[in-house]
Structure formats: structure tokens, C-alpha cells
């Protein structure tokens, strides 16, 4: 089991997440795709630190998890506020600021 394989899987998940961010219009779904990307990073870190016999990568993963949680909280807030104003969480409705 080469580290490359893990990295490839991570990359695939990362890219799927990126696609999701690109094509979805729903705020929540976009956030889910972002979480996918974060998880890809996590996977990469764990794989690499195992491959290099290091531990710091795993620590990093923990912090990433914390940040992800924090951002989930922020998303909660923003989604609610946005919904309150627009009645939807479709990001296409956010087009007041332009040019």
C-alpha cells in the first residue's frame, strides 16, 4: 500500500468536493463539498505521516477537525441569516454586490 494510492484517493475526493462547490447552488450542499475537500486533506495528512513515520500530521488533522467544526457553526449562522433575508439559501440569489 503505497502512500501514492492514498494521495490519489485523497485527490479524487478533493476534486469531487471541488466539483461540488463549483456546480451546486445550495449553500448547505456547497458546504458539504467543502467538508469533503477538508477530509481529503485529512486523509492525506494521516497517510503521509504514517508513510514518513511521523506524528505531526496526525496532530494537524485534529486541528483541521476543530476548524471544520467552527466553520460548521459559522455556516449555521450565515445560512440562517441569509435565509431570513432571501427566503432561500440558493447562492444565485446573492447578487446585490456586483461590478
Amino acid at each position: 500500500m503505497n502512500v501514492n494510492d492514498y494521495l490519489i484517493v485523497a485527490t479524487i475526493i478533493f476534486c469531487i468536493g471541488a466539483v461540488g462547490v463549483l456546480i451546486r447552488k445550495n449553500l448547505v450542499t456547497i458546504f458539504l463539498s467543502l467538508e469533503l475537500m477538508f477530509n481529503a486533506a485529512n486523509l492525506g495528512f494521516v497517510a503521509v505521516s504514517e508513510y514518513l513515520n511521523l506524528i505531526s500530521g496526525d496532530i494537524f488533522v485534529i486541528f483541521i477537525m476543530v476548524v471544520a467544526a467552527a466553520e460548521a457553526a459559522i455556516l449555521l449562522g450565515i445560512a440562517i441569516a441569509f435565509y431570513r433575508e432571501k427566503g432561500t439559501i440558493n447562492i444565485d440569489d446573492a447578487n446585490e454586490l456586483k461590478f
Partner: protein
Amino acid sequence: MNSKDLIVWLIPFFPLLGAILWGVFGKYFKNYSGYLGSIFIIISFILSVIIFFIVAYGHGFSSTLYPWVYASYFKVNVSTTIDRLSVIMLVMVTGISSLVHIYSIGYMKDDKGFARYFSYLNLFVFSMIMLVMANNFLLLYVFWEAVGFCSYILIGFWYEKKSASDAGKKAFIVNRIGDFGFALGVMLIFITMGTLNYSTVFSGIHLLPPYLITTIALLLLAGAVGKSAQFPLHVWLPDAMEGPTPVSALIHAATMVTAGVYLIARCHVIFSYSPDASYVVLIIGSITAFMASFIALTQFDIKRVIAYSTISQIGYMFMAVGVGSYAAGMFHLLSHAIFKGLLFLTAGSVMHGMSGELDMRKMGGLYSKMKITAITFIVGGLALSGIPPFSGFFSKDAILGDVFNKGDYFFWVLGELAAFMTAFYIFRVIFNVFFGESHVDKNLHVHESPKIMTIPLIIMASLAAVFGFVGFPPFNHSIFYEFINKDFTNAFNFAPAVNNVPWYPLSAISVIAGLSGIYIAYVFYIKKSFNLEKLKNRFKPIYDLSYNKLYVDEIYDIVIVNPMKNFAIFLWRIVDTLVIDGAVNGIAQYISVTSSKVRKLQNGMLMSYIFTLTVGVIALLAYYFVR
């Protein structure tokens, strides 16, 4: 600064003082400006006579006032050279201008620009004096332009008349065209000789290669042609008659227009070393003499007739200096100054009597009304047409004789023809104005001019009658020639006389020419034995040619002026506005259009933002991928 220098510098000082006084405080002086101005000029006339005798019985000298322009190796002083040539000119200028001043007091009596007039006139006299006294080319050039400017403001003296201000502008610009060449000549002299002082230049000019000398001479000639209204730059002088008549007498007959001849005489060394240039001078002179007198045949405006005759007389002078007989040229210059000034002044007095009428067809039989004017006019006419013993006879025949003896027969013939026509047109004027039946409309009361105008006429008339004898007998051994030739020592060394015909047969021929001219005029206008109208119709093309001044102005308009005009407008409208400024604004336009496109990138759509970001990522990765 010893007494001689003091006198020399006082001569220009008084007219300058006058100019400043009347110019600035004119309205406090009113009429005194006229008298005081005349007194100033008379003082400087006396001073110049003194100088004349100092030089005549001593020798020439030069005096420096102050260093003018000292730019590294370009050094020019304000200084004068006083030799026989300049003192003669001084005396002539101051003398005639004092007479004209006195005359003007009467002529301009009730003109509201009285003081202004005298300040201009004094300014002109100052400039003219400095012009003849200058001892280097730059100073000469300066006052050369200064007199041009004075004639500009004097021609346009009555600036309300569009024709007057136009004429002034035309005079200035045509002169500028001549001065363009003159300035180039001065520069060429400086860069070849390294100095502009007459003495140094003349003593060293023979060291230059001939083509350079010729170039310099021709460039100087351009200036002379412009100033002396020679062909092809003669067009400004007839229009200049818009100015007050005394101005025409002083500037456009006696002094300024002859400055060209003075210049060539002054630079006789240069011209002597360049036969080609002298030949060009001769050609120009003879063409002008012939052409101008031809035009003068059919003009009806008295002053225009006299103006054209001035042009042609100066043509004679050019012929003289062209063949290298500078003495004869100067001689004719002086005598011409006298009798042509006289003619103008009398014409002015006729105008004054006729309250401004100039068309000879509306005159006639004035002899009884204004005797003094008539007689003086006739004296002037005789002098002009070269009838002995009047001054014109001696000077003109001296010239023609020299031309003949130098072997330039063709030009001699031209000269004789011109002399014939001269006699004709001037007596045409005389007969039409003073004799025959009167065409003056009745309610116009014709009167003789006041004393203050007639006295100068009489003085000048008597001068015109007797002056010629200082040059008798012609060629080389008369008072005048002995006096002046001391300055033209190396003048004859390039044109040896091919044949030595004595003066009386030649002058007999020209006298015959003159007399026949007078006779034909008499036949035409007194006896009326021909029907002039029929004659006119038979020679219609020639008549029109003469009447329309050979169409020179029109040709200039078509060939030079209009193309220039269109080119200028093209430059302004097309090149400047469209091309250059268009390019600048076009760039600005382009930038703003681009920016309005660029702003569209920021279209407010989160989707597209993410897309942009992703594209950026891909591009960066691709950079390394393809690397």
C-alpha cells in the same frame, strides 16, 4: 568719449528722445510735439552737417557706445562707423526728414493722432540714422528691421481703414521675407568670418572661396530687394501709399527704400569679389526699372504712379551698383531722394487742396488754383524725366553711361526705354492734373496749401534744380565723385570698362528719349490728337497687363499664399485635431472600454467567482505541468 563721439551719439539721441516723449506723454504736448519734433530733427541735421565737414576735411572714425551681445565667441558692440558714405546718408536723411517734419505740421494739423504721428516719425528717423551709422551687420540688421517696423506702423497709421492696416501688414511681412535672406547672410558671414564688424569682414572677405562670397552677396541682396521694393518683392510699396503722404515722401521715396542701395554700396567689397552676384543685381535692377515704369504708364492714382516710378528709379540705382559704379548709384540715390520727395510732397499738397482726392481723372486745370504746387511739381517731373539741367539728368545719365561703357548694351537699352516711359507717365500726370479742362466737381473748393507746407516744397524744388551740378561732369572727376570714391577704392576692380564713350552722346540719347516721352504725353493729353479709347482697345492685352500691375499679386496668391493657407488648415484640422489628439483620446477611449469589459468579471455570481479561482489554480498548476 571725446567731442566727436558725443556729436555722433547726439545725432540719433534727439529723434529717440522725441519719439519717447511724444509716444508716452503725447497728450500733454498736443501741437508742440510737431514743432519740437521738427526742432529736434533740425538739430540733428545741423550736427550731421558738422560731422560731414569733420569727415570731409579729416577722415572717418568709429565710436563704441557699449558692448551689446557677448555670448562666448559671439561679440557685438553698439558702435558706429563714420565715413564718407554714412555722413552723406546722414545729411540726406536728416535734411529731408526735417523738411518733411515741417511739412507734416501743416499736413497733419487737424488729425487726432498728431503726437502719435510725430513720435512714429521721430522713431523712424532715429532708426534710419542708426542704420546708416551702424558699423556691424547685426546692428545694421536690427535697424533694418526697425525701419521696416516704423514703416509698418506709419503705413497703418490710420488703422481704422482695413486697407491701411492690411497694407502695413503686407509691407512688414514682405520685408520679413527679404530679411529672412538677409539674416541668413549675416549668420553666414559670422560663421565664415567669425565677426560681424564691417572693417574686419571687408578686409578678410577675399580669403573665402568664391561660391561662399557669392552666397553671402546674394543673401544680402535678398534683404536689399525686399527693402527697396525690387522685383519680385516690390508688391508692398504701391499698397504702402495708404499711409500719410509725408510718410510716403520720407520713407517710401527718400530714405528707407533706398536702404537696399545703401546696403549694396556698403558691402561693395563683397559684391566686387563676386561678379555673378553683381550681375544678378544688374538684372534685377534693370527688370525692375523697366517693369515698374511700364506699370506706371496706366495708373490713375497719382501716388501710385509716383510709387511705381520710385520702384523703377531704385531699379536704376541697382543697375548702377550692379555694374559696379557705386558712386553713380549713390549720386542717383541722393538726387532721387530730393526730387522724389519733392514729388510726393507736392502730390500731398494737391491732395490737401483737393481734400484727399487722388484720382487724376477727377482733376485738371489746377495750375491756376495752386501755382506753387504746380511749379514745384513740374520741376520735380523734369528732374525725374532727366531733362537738363535738373538733377535727375546728371545722375541717371551717369548710370546709363556706366552701364553702356561696361558693355551691357541690352540693359542700357532697357534703361533708355524706361527713361522714355518715365518721362511719359510723369508728364501724363502733370498734364492731367494741372492743365487741360477741369473735372473737379464744383462744390469742392480747391485751395493752395499753407506756407508751412509750401516753403519746404520750394526749398526742395530749388535743390532738385541745382543739386545735379555737384556731379558735373559725370564719371570720376567731379566734386561728388572725388568725395565719395575715396570709399569705393577697390570697387572697379571686377568690371573693367570695355569702351570709353564720352558722356555727351549717351546723355543726348537719353535726353531725346525723355523729350520724346514728354512730347507724346503732350500729344495724348493736351492736344488730344489721338482717340485714347481706341488706342486702349487696340493694345488691350498690353494695356491690361500694365493696368493690372502684371498680375503679380494674383500670381503670388495662387502660387504661394493659398497653398500655404490650405496646408496650414490641413495641419490644424487633420493632423492636429484628428491624428495626434485623436490618437491620445483614442487610447483613453480604448482603456475605458477595456475596463468596462473587465468589470464584467466581477458579476456578483458566487459561482463564477469560484470558477475564476479554480481556473487560476489550474493555470498555476499547468504552468509547472507544461514546464
